[in-house]
């Protein structure tokens, strides 16, 4: 699989970031910068990280997400991780990966509901705790 680009799109008042299946380290680094630029220009409610294509998450990737979500939080936004693959969830759990203060959603649509729907207190209980 050739290296694919990360796509960042504004949807309603949210930044939707789609991450390709095997992102290179450079892609991941650039991603962080792009998100922060996006945050500055658009001032969204939050950022959705669509990882439905990602089939491996190691500690490097998790760390990047954690850092990014911290930065997003400092800039006043929330981070939602959407579409984690089952095998990835299993491994992340077993590795005890910490994604930071993020929320999770089954897919992008639900992530949008989480960020801009009414009465979103319930969903913020889906934050991450490392074991």
């Amino acid at each position, binding site marked *: 699989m050739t290296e694919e680009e990360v796509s960042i799109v504004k949807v309603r008042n949210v930044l939707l970031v789609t991450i390709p299946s*095997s992102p*290179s*380290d*450079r892609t991941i680094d650039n991603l962080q910068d792009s998100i922060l630029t996006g945050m500055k220009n658009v001032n969204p409610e939050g950022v959705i990280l669509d990882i439905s294509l990602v*089939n*491996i*998450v*190691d*500690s*490097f990737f*998790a*760390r990047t997400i954690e850092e990014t979500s911290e930065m997003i939080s400092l800039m006043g936004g929330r981070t939602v991780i959407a579409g984690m693959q*089952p*095998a*990835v969830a*299993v*491994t992340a759990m*077993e*590795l*005890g*990966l910490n994604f930071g203060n993020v929320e999770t959603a089954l897919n992008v649509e639900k992530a949008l509901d989480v960020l801009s729907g009414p009465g979103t207190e319930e969903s913020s209980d889906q934050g991450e705790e490392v074991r």
Partner: protein
Amino acid sequence: MNPGPDATTLNGKMEIKSDTDVVDIRSKVRDLCNRIGFSLPETTRVVTATSELARNIIEFAGTGEVRWKILENDSASAPQEETVGIELTFEDDGPGIEDLEWAMQDGTSTGNGLGKGLPGAKKLMDEMEVESGPGSGTRITLKKWSVGK
């Protein structure tokens, strides 16, 4: 034996010295796991452990090697039970792990995340052997079996 890009030998090795090598070794290991019939979650565990330790090689030693081998186990105690597995060896001539016991504890970090990742890799695989010492490089061998253990 050095595998070419289209080699179908089930044993081989690869040099690791850059981030793209990490992506390549993950691909290779995934391919091997599929060949020997690991399930998707099992494959994901093996590939993730590979990614962690391959990164360690780059981070702590700059360059090193990963060797893979397909294993077969005809258990003498259960002759009907045939299992296959994969063995991965991560070797470098880096500074070595100073305090092995400390590195094996859950949650150890060199200050930038999960750091050495050894406890994680151990949890994901069935067997792990570490040979290392200050100044004498590191060799870590991982094994995972499929079908009964």
